[in-house]
């Protein structure tokens, strides 16, 4: 019984050129515009989570880490978040930090190597001294650049005694050393610096924030651990982001056929046949899901053909995420249509809800550019889960088995929304 409903809806759609244009051409146009404009964009805003691994555990490395912790724009993590009550996870190592960045737990990790404290600062650009590793995820094009800059700033502002000490070493090496009296004054000055810094920490004043960093005094080697081979980091994001937003519009439009049929009396006639309301809604949901999935296929094939998205190597993950996303948006459309009384109502409500969801859920701007609260609010939207899933597939190259959180949430959203829509649709069943 579902197949005839799909067939009927399909023929109707084929004859509705405006709906076809809205379904396929408009999203591609918008996607292309966004991809072209934002493809190379570099913006800053966020509070960045940084994993820090201090292998050195020296005075200098500890001061550096503390300086980073005092940075208001950074969230420093030295160990994973605790999952079990009372069990403290072990601290990150270089390997687990890299794995965490690959998994998307943080966009940046810093590894302070053994021996860093022996020669932490160089004004000469030494190439053979221990170098801090900055491991980054290229999908966040902002975070690693911010962290790299802040690292130099912190070195300048949070380690004055270390810098002075390093300076005296240079004096010993190149000037022939200090006299005992000079050495005594030098040490007294260093001690004053340390006392002054302690006093500032005691009063809560952040000395690190007072002076701008000049950069380059700490050797940092940056390495992208995710997306190093991707030729256009934002294309897969926008294919998913713009795609999902338009799927929502299309799904609400397709579900709106319910309102047309109710208005013309066709719905009553259909319900007087063997077709029940549940079967009818299920048929329309199946059609919406197929339509939405077709849109995603068109969108990603376009991205592959025009923007060189690596589509062919990710087809299994795409299919899984595509079907789940299409199902969720289909059910969302059914819910909106069941709530509304007229097409005009549906148009207004869907525009409002979908644009809101899309902005919060990351369809218009990446969620990592948003404040924490907004990022969490985004998790209430279909957009966020769908985009996260597609990002895992196309950006992180994760296997299908890693998509279970997104799959479960999207399917769950779909089932719940459909159940609510079915309940509300009782109003059409009989008077």
């Amino acid at each position, binding site marked *: 019984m579902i197949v*005839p409903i799909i067939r009927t809806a399909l*023929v109707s759609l084929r004859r509705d050129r405006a709906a076809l244009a809205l379904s396929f051409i408009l999203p591609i146009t918008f996607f292309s515009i966004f991809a072209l404009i934002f493809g190379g964009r570099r913006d800053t805003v966020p509070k960045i989570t940084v994993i820090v691994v201090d292998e050195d555990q020296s005075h200098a490395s500890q001061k550096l880490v503390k300086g980073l912790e005092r940075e208001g724009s950074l969230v420093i993590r030295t160990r994973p978040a605790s999952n079990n009550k009372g069990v403290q996870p072990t601290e990150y190592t270089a390997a687990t930090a890299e794995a965490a960045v690959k998994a998307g737990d943080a966009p940046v990790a810093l590894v302070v190597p053994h021996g860093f404290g022996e020669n932490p600062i160089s004004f000469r650009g030494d190439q053979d001294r221990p170098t801090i590793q900055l491991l980054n995820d290229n999908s966040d094009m902002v975070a690693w650049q911010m962290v790299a800059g802040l690292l130099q700033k912190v070195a300048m502002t949070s380690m004055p005694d270390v810098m002075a000490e390093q300076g005296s070493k240079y004096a010993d090496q190149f000037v022939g050393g200090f006299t005992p009296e000079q050495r005594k004054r030098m040490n007294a000055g260093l001690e004053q610096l340390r006392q002054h810094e302690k006093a500032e920490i005691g009063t809560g004043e952040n000395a690190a924030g007072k002076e701008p960093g000049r950069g380059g005094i700490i050797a940092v080697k940056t390495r992208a651990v995710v997306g190093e081979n991707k030729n256009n980091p934002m294309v897969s994001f926008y294919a998913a982001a713009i795609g999902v937003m338009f799927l929502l519009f299309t799904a609400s439009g397709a579900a709106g056929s319910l309102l047309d049929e109710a208005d*013309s009396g066709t719905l009553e006639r*259909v319900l*007087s*046949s*063997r077709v029940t309301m549940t079967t009818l809604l299920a048929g329309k949901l199946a059609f919406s899901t197929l339509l939405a999935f077709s849109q995603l296929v068109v969108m990603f094939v376009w991205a592959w053909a025009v923007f060189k998205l690596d589509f062919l190597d990710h087809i299994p993950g795409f299919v899984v995420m595509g079907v789940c996303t299409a199902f969720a948006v289909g059910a969302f459309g059914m819910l909106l249509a069941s709530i509304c009384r007229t097409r005009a109502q549906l148009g207004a409500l869907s525009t409002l809800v979908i644009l809101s969801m899309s902005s919060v859920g990351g369809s218009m701007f990446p969620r990592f550019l948003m404040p924490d609260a907004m990022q969490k609010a985004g998790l209430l939207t279909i957009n966020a889960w769908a985009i996260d899933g597609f990002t895992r597939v196309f950006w992180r190259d994760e296997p299908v088995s890693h998509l279970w959180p997104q799959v479960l949430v999207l399917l769950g959203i779909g089932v719940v929304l459909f159940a609510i829509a079915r309940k509300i649709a009782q109003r059409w069943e*009989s008077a």
Partner: protein
Amino acid sequence: MSVPAGPISSSSLPLHIEALVKRFGQVTAIDAITLELRSGECLGLLGPNGAGKSTLIRSIVGRVVPDAGWVAVFGSPANSAAARAALGWVPQELALYPRLTGKENLESFGRYHGLSGSGLRQAVEWCLDWSSLQDRAGELAKNLSGGMRRRLNMAAGIIHRPKLVLMDEPTVGVDPQSRNRIFEMIERLHGEGTAIIYTTHYMEEAERLCDRIAILDHGRIIALGTNEELVENAFASRSQILARFTGPPGGVSAWVEQRGGRLVDSTALFTVEHPTEIATLLDDAAKAGLKVVDVSLRRPNLESVFLHLTGRELRD
């Protein structure tokens, strides 16, 4: 009275309605209607707009849940699977898919009724032939003329060849030629033994098509019988004189009322025992200073019956 959930009658009657009541808020749309439809019978539901005809039809289809009473279709409760299979419904609205062709519409509704394969093809062919739409089968429904869409609307309601067909004012908004073609379709269906409920507010349609007629007003059946029975019961052997007069303003209506007649659309209507009374009536009019424009004598019809029973015109 509660509505029975299971089979409610072993009767083979196509339709049995018992003490049916339906209220919408303060309005009682159906007020304790009891009705039976015989096998192969065409029963007309005649009444003005708002009389409760469509609500009664929708109750039979199961689209309206009654507040009391019950409906049985060939012994099965309304809205049961058996009742749905036995029923065909032609709603007043053009309940079609506008972007599907006539043939595609019929195929869709056929599938919704469980038809497939050769059964579906044969049903579609039969319906196209029945509605004389073979030549326009490939035309989009929205591009068909009003009369054609009406016929397609009817065909979609009987695609599964039901034994009982409910037609809710199928001639609304069609021209006389299309109306005649629709009458022929209904007569063919009736001739093949299909039981039909036909709602209308045109007495000519009820007189032409229906074996029996139920006159509805304010949700009640106020008269039920054949055309002749209804007239006989209301008027016996009496006749009606229709006359138009000219005279001083207000003079015509006052005189007609005084003579026990009714003024309907500037035509005076008098019920008389014998046709010879027409001479006396015209004499009285002349004495009252009225001039006769035209006058005729007729046997009372359904319109007369309705007017007689309710004091209102059928199209009020």
